[in-house]
């Protein structure tokens, strides 16, 4: 049942259509505002059809007509819309019940197309037909089913085109001028002032404002243009501005929604200032009128409330002012320092890590963990490259402890975190760590690198050891060595794999480190290189075996007694002595029975005697006694020394330093 008068229904419908048309032109496809406008239009059409929207509207000069009525297009925006329909050669227009939002959207899309695009598509009705729009009817003199006699129609089209072109060119040039004005405060201000000449003609300025608003409304940057115009209006000379607002703009609020739109775009301060100049009784009357406006409830309320404030003389005057901060205020200088410090990449990085952890715990979006891992990897890398290992450690500790995360998050994304560790353990990520050790001194770096590697685990340590064995400079190498030592047994697997390295220096270092770490599992790997070509390695093997293998080392150590290298033999004997195992007495006795030809032999025998003295078993003492009592010729100087050493060892447990020197 119709609840409103038909002209109002028609006008309301046309305004909704115009609003939706503007929205769909302004907002990109998919924008929720556009979709909202479309839904609103559809609801409005359905309501209008129920309220008696005529099935066919005719577009006539200055009005829309239908059978039995008409509505004049006094509203400039509506008139512009009517004119546009007319220039698109639409003479009749209707919407049938059952129209779908899709059809409305198609209609608006077509109305927003350029003329030539429409022509290229065969005209508006053809285009709507192609898009299967069945509930919207458009008629024009040049298209439709009654286009018999194409010849005259074509001629008419050509004439119309020519005229259209001319009118359009003039309107366009004029429009460009005005559009330019609404972007340029100085020119627009000057124009308003010029218009008001002579005698402060506020009415002329008002007419100019009324003319400009519809032009502004259709521009995508209308807020900026409104602002330009409002600034110009505020800047008008006081008398002119007072008249303009009190006699023209404010009263127009009752009848002109464009003016409502304009006024709501003034800031709170500006509006208070503007209404402050209007006499109280006028304000009272205005307020009553504004309250009676049938639409734009919230905008109307805003103006109405501001008027109330003005009447109550409150707002700005009630705010106490304080002295302004000086440009050389010490607080300002502190802020400057804080701002500069905070904007360094290091500071941003630190902050971002905190945010990251918050996001890990908070964000529920799918796929985020993947990106998060990327982000954290970047952050760790950047922290290391900026010598901020502490920060990188903070990230790793956070991940390792799982502190900031929900337990289920951690469980769910464990594989992802493993992948992060895997990435961070790669050569590209570990190399910068070694660079830190190359650059940095002090125990802090060593301790931080150690912790970093320990968190990342075997893969990272293996890479690090790889870098370490290639390091040439003694300083960094020493620090890397400290790191590996501090890593302890966790580094052992990486060291074991390099025991057989072709470079003797590397092999020796690995063996030495394994011994220092005390990894018994390394014994097997070390035993494989007991016959290494290089005596230094063999010596290191001997030491490592003695350290790690204990009694198991006796056999290889005893084998080393026959090593071609004296130093190796010497080392083996010392180690055997240190092991103090009685089973070594017999092999030692055999060796001691051999002739002492060289100084090297003498040195070895001295060590053997020391070893026997250390072992101290009856068998060992018997061997020593036998040597001490052995008959030697006076010219057998070396043998005599051996005999002396044995005797001395029997007395004191070890040979004296003098004897050692003599030897």
């Amino acid at each position: 049942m119709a609840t409103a008068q038909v002209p109002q229904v028609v006008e309301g419908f046309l305004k909704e259509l115009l609003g939706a048309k503007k929205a769909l032109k302004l907002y990109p496809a998919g924008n929720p505002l556009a979709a909202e406008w479309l839904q609103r239009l559809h609801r409005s059409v359905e309501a209008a059809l129920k309220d008696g929207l005529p099935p066919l509207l005719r577009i006539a000069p200055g009005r829309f007509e239908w059978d039995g009525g008409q509505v004049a297009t006094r509203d400039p925006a509506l008139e512009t819309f009517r004119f546009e329909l007319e220039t698109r050669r639409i003479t009749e227009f209707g919407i049938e019940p059952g129209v779908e939002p899709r059809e409305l959207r198609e209609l608006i899309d077509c109305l927003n197309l350029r003329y030539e695009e429409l022509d290229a598509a065969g005209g508006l009705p053809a285009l709507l037909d192609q898009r299967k729009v069945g509930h919207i009817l458009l008629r024009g003199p040049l298209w439709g089913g009654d286009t018999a006699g194409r010849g005259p129609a074509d001629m008419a089209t050509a004439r119309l085109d020519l005229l259209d072109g001319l009118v359009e060119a003039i309107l366009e040039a004029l429009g460009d001028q005005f559009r330019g004005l609404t972007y340029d405060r100085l020119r627009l201000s000057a124009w308003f002032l010029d218009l008001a000449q002579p005698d402060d003609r506020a009415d002329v300025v008002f007419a100019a404002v009324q003319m400009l608003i519809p032009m502004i409304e259709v521009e995508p940057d209308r807020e900026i243009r409104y602002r330009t115009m409002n600034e110009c209006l505020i800047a008008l000379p006081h008398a002119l501005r007072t008249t303009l607002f009190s006699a023209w703009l404010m009263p127009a609020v009752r009848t002109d929604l464009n003016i409502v739109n304009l006024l709501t775009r003034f800031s709170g301060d500006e509006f208070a200032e503007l209404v402050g100049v209007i006499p109280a009784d006028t304000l009272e009357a205005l307020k009553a009128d504004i309250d009676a406006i049938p639409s734009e409830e919230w905008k109307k309320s805003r103006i109405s409330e501001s008027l109330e404030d003005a009447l109550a003389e409150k707002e700005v005057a009630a705010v106490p002012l304080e002295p302004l901060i000086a440009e050389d205020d010490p607080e300002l200088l502190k802020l400057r320092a804080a701002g500069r410090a905070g904007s360094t990449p290091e500071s941003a990085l630190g902050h971002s890590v905190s945010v990251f952890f918050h996001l890990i715990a908070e964000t529920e979006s799918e796929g985020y963990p993947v990106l998060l891992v990327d982000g954290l990897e970047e952050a760790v890398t950047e922290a290391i490259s900026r010598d901020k290992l502490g920060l990188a450690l903070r990230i790793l500790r956070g991940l390792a402890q799982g502190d900031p995360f929900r337990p289920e998050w951690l469980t769910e994304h464990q594989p992802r975190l493993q992948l992060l560790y895997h990435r961070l353990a790669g050569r590209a990520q570990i190399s910068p760590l070694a660079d830190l050790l190359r650059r940095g001194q002090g125990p802090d770096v060593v301790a931080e690198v150690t912790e970093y590697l320990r968190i990342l685990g075997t893969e990272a340590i293996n890479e690090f050891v790889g870098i370490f064995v290639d390091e040439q400079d003694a300083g960094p190498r020493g620090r890397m060595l400290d790191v590996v030592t501090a890593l302890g047994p966790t580094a052992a697997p990486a060291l074991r794999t390099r025991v057989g390295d072709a470079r003797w220096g590397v092999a020796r270092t690995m063996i030495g480190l394994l011994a220092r770490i005390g990894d018994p599992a390394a014994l097997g790997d070390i035993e494989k290189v007991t016959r290494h070509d290089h005596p230094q390695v063999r010596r290191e093997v001997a030491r490592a075996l003695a350290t790690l293998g204990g009694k198991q080392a006796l056999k290889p150590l005893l084998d080393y007694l026959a090593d071609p290298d004296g130093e190796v033999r010497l080392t083996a004997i010392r180690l055997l002595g240190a092991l103090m195992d009685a089973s070594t007495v017999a092999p030692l006795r055999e060796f001691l029975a051999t002739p002492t030809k060289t100084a090297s032999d003498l040195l070895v025998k001295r060590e053997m005697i020391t070893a026997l003295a250390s072992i101290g078993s009856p068998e060992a003492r018997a061997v020593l006694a036998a040597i001490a009592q052995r008959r030697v010729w006076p010219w057998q100087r070396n043998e005599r020394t051996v005999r002396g050493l044995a005797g001395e060892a029997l007395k004191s447990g070890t040979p004296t330093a003098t004897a050692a020197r003599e030897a």
Partner: protein
Amino acid sequence: MSISELPRDQVEQVFAQLNGLLRLTGLYPPRHPQIQRALQSFHQAVVACLQYQSALEYRFLGDLLIAGNRILPRESMMYRRFIELCQTERGIGAVIFHAGVTESEIEALAELLGSGTRDDVASWAERKSVTHIVLEEPARREEQTSEVMARRAYFGAVEMLRMVEAGILRGEAVTVEQLSSLRILTSAIMDQIMADPSLVLRLANIKSYDEYTLYHSVNVCVLSISIGALIGLPDPELRELAMAAILHDLGKITIPLEILHKSRPLEESEWAIIRRYPVRGADMLSRLPGFNRLPMIVAFEHQIREDRLGYPSVAPTWDLHPFSQIVGVADAYDSMTTLRKHKRPLPALRALAVLRQAGHQAYDLRLVRILERIIRSTPPGPVPAGVGPATEPAARIVG
């Protein structure tokens, strides 16, 4: 139809063709078929544009390329060398094509762009009988900084943000190009503000009810730049601050419109959704290409407040980034002074009083005082001289 209504692609493509033509003139002799083909193609493109408008104008201002009222940030970036060459070596500040332009005129322009001329551009046009292409000399530095320019940059930033948000809503990733464009536009806004401080309030007073968040974001950018400048942040840091500020509310895109535009007080469940937006914004910003950390930090922290009682909830020991503090103050001020469906705008001084009262607990009071200095002591800016218009008025309305 004004140039601002021409499809953006068309305007951009014509300029790309002009740039291509210039490159070809450096490679081939004038009558080479390649050049001739490029000339014909470019002529057709210009003529096509001029069917809908009387003139097609490209203006160079510093690093920026402007077509009509629009800054073309992407092209400013892509054709930087060309823009620089025109201004510094060829003495050209604007190229304006008028309807009726001929291929021979375009050929003359290509020759000029390729080899230059000893004359000034006006004499060149006369000598070559070029009447449908107007070349203007480059604007002086002081002319490059203007309110009009600032408004262009402001609107460019709004448009770019709109594109970014629409893309996100369609499920598309933000592109490097979009971010670079945004950087160019925020830098342009900053340059204008630094040259004319009176622009701060002129720009920050631009509001929109329908697209509140977009305009609010640019306003917060404007105010943050101004606060940062008064603190004395160096130029590069200010540019970073501007970028972080303009993206601070990106997470609001995840708030349903019915909540965002609700005129009645929000329910607790709706507040819970609102309180999530900084996290969501930071989440989105952490995924951006060429990821810069500051926007993510600021998006996350700007609602936390000094007393840590804002949102998202963090430990009391959480250390706020200085940029987040600046943006937080600018954000609160702009929000309070903007008309929304559920609240009236506060006058500036009252908003500042609210911020002062909340200071120490909610905001860094020093920043509030800096903002107050900006608001209260910003110069009014230039006014039109005398009563007469600075230039010929566009038209006169007879009352």
